[in-house]
Structure formats: structure tokens, C-alpha cells
């Protein structure tokens, strides 16, 4: 395996000042999960997976986050904290740092994701693809608790179990190859998600990889409460895993 440091870019979208009182004082990525924080957990897991070069974009309290985390060395990474110029998290951000990202594929992460998934699995898969875009996807099953009644006029003709509705959502983790960036230099597409929407719209091939491990999108304060419980469970609970959060 190559000794080159693998790069990751995290784009975080904070509630900003519109969050609830205390969560607006403290950036979302530094809200507590036990004695740690979402961002510290992400950095540690990235480092373990060999991503030692991390660029973190935020739209909120950039200076504070930068001071709080320092150089990143305590987490095993070289960290650069940046402010999103336009605060939209647009794909153009990635294009703007194309020079820094260099030739190798890089990992793109949504700052809201708490997961036990091994980033390296996605990365290896993405590197092996011809397509410059690979998106982690998450299978979501919505099951109905009600039986499905088939009617014909006034008659019930059958009663059937309702099928589960299976859909796939974006898991907030991507592998991008540098050549993917060029076409987005002027993109208005918001976040990495819009980046892919634009790519599929242009008929470009986009690969998917299923994220089949613990995964949570901490997009709202209610999700944060769930994240706090899950973190307690995986980091200290009976089910503590060797690769715990």
C-alpha cells in the first residue's frame, strides 16, 4: 500500500445562530458526545483509517474550532480548518482547492455523520472505479404496520401484508477523483449532494457503495440526543467494539 497520506475533506453545515440557545453558542461539531465531540470522533476514525490530511470547512465559528483542535496532531491528523467563503457548502469549494488535493482520489465527508463504518472500504472501492464519483449509500427500510386491503367496488377481495418500502439515501461520504473537480469550478450546486445531482444530470457515471455499519446523520438537535445515547452504548457499553467510536 502506498505511504502517501490520504486526504479527506469534511464539509460541515452548522445551525449557526438559529440553533437552540446553547447549541448556537457552541458549534455543532463540538457539542458533547460523552467526553468527546462529533468532530474529534471523526478525526480519530479518519486517522485510524489512514486519512492523515484533513481539510475541514465550516460556516460557523471557524476561528474557535481551529483553536480548539489545534494542529490536529493530538488526533493523528494534519488538520486545516477553513471558513466557507459563501456559506452554502457548494461543490465549488472542492474545485477551489483542487491544487491542494493533488492527483490522488480523496474522501469527501458530510460533517454531520457519526458512523462505525470503515472509511477505507469506501475509499478503496472508489479508487478502483473508472468513474470519478463514488457515493456511499444507506439502505432505508420503511415498514408499514398496517395490512393492505384490496378492494373491488364495495368488496374486499384480498388482504395482504404491506410490503416494506426500501429506498437508498446518500450516506454523506464520497470518493472523488481529481478529474471530477474541473467541471465544478463554477458550480452552484449546494453541498456534495448537489455535486452528484449535477453529475448524474450530465449523464456522468456515479458509482455507489453501501454503508452497512452503524450510521447516524446528526442533522438536528433531536438527532444529537440519539447520537449521545448511541455513543455511550458503543464507547462504554456492553457492546463495546474493538473499533468503537
Amino acid at each position: 500500500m502506498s505511504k502517501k497520506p490520504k486526504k479527506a475533506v469534511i464539509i460541515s453545515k452548522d445551525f449557526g445562530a438559529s440553533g437552540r440557545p446553547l447549541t448556537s453558542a457552541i458549534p455543532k461539531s463540538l457539542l458533547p458526545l460523552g467526553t468527546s465531540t462529533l468532530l474529534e470522533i471523526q478525526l480519530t476514525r479518519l486517522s485510524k483509517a489512514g486519512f492523515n490530511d484533513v481539510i475541514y470547512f465550516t460556516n460557523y465559528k471557524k476561528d474557535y474550532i481551529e483553536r480548539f483542535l489545534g494542529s490536529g496532531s493530538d488526533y493523528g491528523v494534519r488538520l486545516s480548518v477553513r471558513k466557507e467563503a459563501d456559506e452554502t457548502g457548494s461543490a465549488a469549494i472542492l474545485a477551489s482547492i483542487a491544487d491542494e488535493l493533488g492527483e490522488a482520489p480523496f474522501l469527501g465527508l458530510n460533517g454531520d455523520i457519526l458512523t462505525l463504518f470503515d472509511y477505507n472500504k469506501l475509499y478503496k472501492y472508489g479508487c478502483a472505479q473508472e468513474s470519478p464519483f463514488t457515493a456511499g449509500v444507506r439502505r432505508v427500510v420503511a415498514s408499514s404496520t398496517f395490512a393492505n386491503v384490496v378492494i373491488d367496488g364495495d368488496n374486499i377481495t384480498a388482504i395482504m401484508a404491506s410490503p416494506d418500502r426500501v429506498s437508498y439515501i446518500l450516506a454523506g461520504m464520497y470518493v472523488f477523483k481529481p478529474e471530477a473537480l474541473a467541471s465544478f469550478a463554477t458550480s452552484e450546486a449546494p453541498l456534495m449532494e448537489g455535486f452528484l445531482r449535477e453529475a448524474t444530470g450530465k449523464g456522468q457515471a456515479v458509482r455507489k457503495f453501501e454503508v452497512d455499519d452503524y450510521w447516524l446523520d446528526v442533522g438536528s438537535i433531536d438527532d444529537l440526543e440519539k447520537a449521545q445515547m448511541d455513543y455511550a452504548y458503543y464507547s462504554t457499553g456492553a457492546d463495546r467494539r474493538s473499533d468503537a467510536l
Partner: protein
Amino acid sequence: MTAAQMTQKAVILSGGLGSRLQPFTAAIPKPLLPVGEKAVLEIQIERLVRSGFGEIYLATNYKSGYIERFLGDGREYGCKLTVSKEEKPLGTAGPLSLLRDELTEPFLVMNGDVLSLVDLSEMYAFACSVDAPFVAGIKKQITPFSFGNIFFEGDYVTKVEEKPDFVTYALAGIYVLKPEILPLIPDDECFGIDQLILKAMELEMPVAKYEINEYWLDIGREDDYRRAQGDAAMFYKDGEF
């Protein structure tokens, strides 16, 4: 500013657990909680430096590593920062026992959770001019009383006071101490500023007060920390803070 002024020393008590601000303080030690985009401690340090305190000691315990990493050696703030880490919590006066050799001139002590616009150099100058080894910053606390207060003698009303305020004075968490008070602090023992004041009075050492009339806030409670956010603009205005 003279060279002598630049060597003024201050100690910021930064070791608290911040238990009243759980769960936030489980991840971020209280002195590093943000007010606007700066940490409380950062605001204090910048203000101390502007008031002529060139050497600042941070008395730490809980999550000391985070504090050290956040603030570095002080060069960025134009001062010399030294972390004095307690191996066990020593209270609000106990940490000073670790700095006996450094604190050879009058020095300022400040709680790591206080935000104030008090003129620190004026307070320091006052303390130096007064004959007392301990000068306590105090802040008037006004508690409104929503009833008329009546005074009487026997069956006769002698006086009516319409809705008077209760006025008390609180220890403001900002003090100036002189080296001669240090022997009163025991080694390696949890010892509070309040205990130190009582001990000084027992020994008939004068303890002076300095009233803070300016903005003052203790962020230790959740509603006060929230209030600090609203006040943040004031701290940042024209480099005021």
C-alpha cells in the same frame, strides 16, 4: 507603559469541572466555552494583557491538555502563559500554593468563568496603594422585592418603604493578593478564597474591597452563560474587550 508594569502577574483559576454546565463541559472545559468566537479564557487573557499583565498563570486541572493546546504559550496574545497543573483539585486558593516562588509581587487572581469590563489596571493600582494583603473585587447584587415593607413599633406603623430592593455584595471572583498572604494557604490541600479571607481576618490582617461598577457576569450557570452570548457583541466592540 513602563517595563515594571509589563511584569505584572495574574493567575486565572481554570481548573473547575463546570458541573453546572453539563453536558457541554464534559467535552469542553468551562474556561474554553465559547462566547462569540472566542473562549472565555481568551477574552480574559486579552483583557489582562491590555491592562499590563504580561505574565499569566493558568491554574488547571480538569482537561488541562485542551486548555494548553487552545492557548499555546501566550505569544499570540502578547504575554507569557504558563500552565500550572494541579494533580488534584485544590479549590480557589489552593492552586496559588504551587506558585509561591513566582508570586513575589502583588498579583491579580481571577476566576476562569468571569467576564467583566472592570478596569483591571485601576483595580491593581488601588490594591497596591492600600495597606491590605488581600483586596477583593465585589459586585453589588440587587434583588427586587415586590412588596411594600412595613416597620412598626407596638401597634403603630412607623415607616413604609415602597418595594425596596434587597442589596447585597457578592465576591466577584477577581482579587489582588500580595505575597505576604501566601503563607496562609496550606500546601497540597483544597482551600478556598473564602477560607483565605476568613483566615486573614482571624489573624487581624486587613482585607480591602474594590467595588466593580462595570459590566460583570459569571458564566457558571446555564442561563448566565446564555446571557453572555447576547452580551458577546459588547466584548468585541471596537476591540473593547
